């Protein structure tokens, strides 16, 4: 109430791209016909690739785990329909590089038969850790596009004092309406999911934050949250990037997440509405994450719409269900236009983090030729993190990565607001991605170097210790001639290990 009266501008910067949301938001979520073939990439999440546990020729049921998570920060993959595994092979991954990625390929049998999930009973009776493990086994990742394993967040949360479970329904990217539609149609499930997360974390309250350009979603969620205490629905101003966790936390709680820390350090845990819905499905019915709502939109799509797509469905199948393309799209994007990745082919599969498939018409794609920076500071005004994008870009361009870091590269969330407003059309995000990549590589190299130095020092120490031990033994033998003494054992030394791969996550 008080905040409503004062209405202080909480979040800095930001931009207001044209929404293009009307057409797809108006229609119900479409259930897709079963595709003939499903391609399940083993890497659909941040962290280590999943490891297949089925063989070619195996019969699988819908919801059956076909690849397990090898480490804590990873997620298993489940068959998204019943059928037979026909191959485990490299396919083109939904990635701008067109790199290959290993996938389990399943021919569907048309029955779409669920596996017996064996889940019954009230989840509120279970221990929080049991529930968190169930979320982990369901293969749920952050479905707003960040694809961080959801269970990792929940487990971290149990170690901190969480005051607020923040359900992110702000959906600030243009074109995307999958969360909007989900909130309108599955409001009760989402509220129930939020309550379950609150239960797992023993959090004080749950807040569902929705941008004020989605009045129907707000109304539906308010109605669903009504019966429960401590589940609030808050309208936040429409602005990009309101959907970024840091900005949303600032808007709702007025606090900033300290640089380098996680949101749990300010007592908040953020989950996207899609993730919350998936968590509800997993905890109440035992259903793993096998499908998601995807917005199919853009000027080149005949009938923009939200579809419920099985994970692994080829993108072409989604586009066909929406009336196909009217002409050649100028750009095909997985995700939203602000942070999505370009797609090279429509044959790539839908993955867990795919919020949208956009086929942009020619007039919707900006021209890409860059002119020199005129230091107009539009990017500085637009940056929600308070950085100086023009300085960062100038330094990244000159390969001065320390300089770029000094001007805030580390704090950059790659939201693209700066490039969106740049009158010179400078591909700022591209510079930052490049510089961040180089910095990461350098850090890894430094780590490796340090490790090598450590190892050689250890080796030297071991040699020295052995020498000393031998000398001691000799001395002891000499001494033994006088009176017998047991020689000291040489010092234990480390085996040579390769640096663990999860460190960079």
């Amino acid at each position, binding site marked *: 109430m008080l905040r409503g009266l004062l209405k202080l501008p909480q979040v800095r910067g930001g931009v207001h791209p044209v929404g293009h949301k009307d057409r797809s938001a108006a229609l119900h979520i479409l259930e897709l016909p079963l595709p003939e073939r499903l391609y399940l990439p083993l890497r659909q999440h941040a962290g280590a690739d999943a490891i297949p546990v089925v063989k070619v020729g195996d019969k699988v049921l819908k919801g059956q785990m076909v690849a397990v998570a090898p480490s804590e920060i990873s997620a298993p993959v489940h068959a998204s329909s019943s059928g037979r595994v026909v191959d485990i092979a490299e396919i083109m991954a939904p990635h701008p590089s067109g790199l290959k990625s290993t996938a389990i390929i399943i021919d569907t049998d048309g029955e779409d038969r669920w596996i017996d999930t064996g889940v019954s009973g009230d989840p509120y009776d279970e221990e929080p850790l049991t529930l968190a493990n169930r979320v982990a086994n369901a293969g749920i990742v952050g479905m707003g596009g960040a694809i961080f394993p959801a269970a990792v967040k929940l487990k971290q949360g149990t170690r901190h004092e969480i005051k607020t479970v923040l359900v992110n329904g702000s959906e600030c990217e243009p074109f995307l309406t999958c969360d909007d539609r989900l909130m309108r149609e599955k409001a009760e499930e989402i509220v129930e999911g939020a309550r379950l997360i609150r239960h797992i974390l023993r959090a004080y309250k749950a807040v569902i934050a929705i941008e004020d350009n989605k009045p129907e979603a707000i109304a539906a969620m308010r109605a669903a949250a009504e019966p429960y205490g401590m589940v609030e629905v808050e309208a936040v101003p429409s602005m990009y990037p309101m959907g970024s966790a840091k900005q949303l936390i600032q808007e709702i709680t007025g606090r900033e997440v300290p*640089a380098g820390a996680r949101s749990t*350090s300010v007592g908040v845990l953020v989950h996207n509405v899609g993730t919350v819905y998936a968590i509800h499905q997993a905890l109440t019915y035992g259903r793993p994450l096998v499908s998601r709502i995807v917005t199919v939109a853009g000027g080149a799509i005949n009938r923009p719409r939200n579809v419920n797509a099985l994970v692994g469905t080829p993108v072409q199948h989604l586009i066909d269900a929406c009336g196909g393309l009217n002409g050649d799209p100028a750009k095909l994007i997985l995700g939203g236009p602000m942070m999505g990745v370009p797609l090279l082919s429509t044959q790539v599969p839908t993955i867990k983090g795919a919020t949208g498939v*956009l086929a942009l018409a020619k007039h919707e794609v900006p021209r890409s030729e860059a002119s*020199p920076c*005129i230091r107009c500071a*539009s990017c500085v005004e637009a940056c929600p993190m308070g950085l*100086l994008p023009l300085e960062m870009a100038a330094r990244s361009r000159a390969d001065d990565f320390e300089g770029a870091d000094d001007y805030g590269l580390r704090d950059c969330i790659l939201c693209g607001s700066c490039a969106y407003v*740049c009158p010179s*059309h400078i591909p700022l995000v591209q510079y930052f991605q*490049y510089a961040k990549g180089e910095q990461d590589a350098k850090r890894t190299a430094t780590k490796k170097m340090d490790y090598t130095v450590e190892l050689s020092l250890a080796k030297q120490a071991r040699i020295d210790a052995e020498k000393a031990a031998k000398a001691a033994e000799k001395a002891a033998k000499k001494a033994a001639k006088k009176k017998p003494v047991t020689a000291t054992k040489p010092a234990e030394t480390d085996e040579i290990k390769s640096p663990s791969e999860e460190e960079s996550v």
Partner: protein
Amino acid sequence: MSDATVFSSPFAHTGNSVTYVMLQVCFALVPCTLFGLYLFGWPAIFLFVVTCAAAVFTELLCLYWLKQPWYRVLDGSALLTGWLIAITLPPWAPWWIGVVGAFFGVAVGKQLYGGIGQNIFNPAMLARTALLITFPVQLTSWVAPAPLGSELAPTLLQSLSITFASAPAPDALTGATALGHLKTALTLDHSASDVLANDFVWWKALLGMSAGSMGETSEVLVLLGAVFLMWRRIIRWEIPVSMLATLAVFSLIFQVADGENYAGVLFHLTSGGVLLGAFFIATDPITSPISRLAKLIFGAGCGLLVFVIRNWGGFPEAVAFSVLFMNSLTPLIDRYCRPRVYGRLPGGKPLPPLSSVDLAREVKRR
């Protein structure tokens, strides 16, 4: 990193461009320019056209020398430079003043530094200052307004000879600007208040019916353009407001303390090119600082310098010198005035993870 070929996100854009920005600034200059052209007649029109054309031509020449694509000239920056030089010149200056100024502004002031975005100094002001020092007589020969169609206005033929043959202006029309007049009067031991009471009518100065540069005389029309620029978010309020406020505060203090020797706020704000300078010249994005605080400091510096130079300097007009001087400080100001980063303290250290309330509770719990 080489200028890359891979096209990364975002795949959306406001549609703004450098050309659009420059042309909007030119558009904002239209009212005061048209008024100036009307006020000073054909010689002013000739000079304006010649200067703008010379600037664009110089840009083309430089692009040819530098082996850059010719269409870079379409970004409009050369036109704007030429335009700004033209409207800050004495309206009846001979044609070669405009040509030399435009060449100096574009070639030396901008392209020698590496083209658009690389120059340290405002090219138009650099050119004007260079002209003032090199050709002081031509740059300080002012004429009283002789609007098109009025009795005093020169005929087309006379105008041609004024601009292109350096014919002298009729004696009846020559005169000093308000600032120049005051400066001379003060050196002759007249008191500022007397001079202003006799010769200065503030509303006339505001409307622009006075001697001065081509486009700077009408404060009202300059403000009209400024409002347009702020509405289009091409300039921000920080630099002009802090510049004008600083000038106003200092002139007020000195007028109150010593009215005999110092002119007042209204005189300073409505005379000379201070408004044009505040809204169109000091706000040049390339040569002014980035962050808001830096902009405030920059503007205040400009305002203070204008006051100092006008009162104690050798020239009656001060905007060009002040802006150039502050341009040279821009990198320094930028260095020390960065915006605070999200999640960090102003110095750059991360915020403490717990708020004071949390800390208190934590302490209590233990």
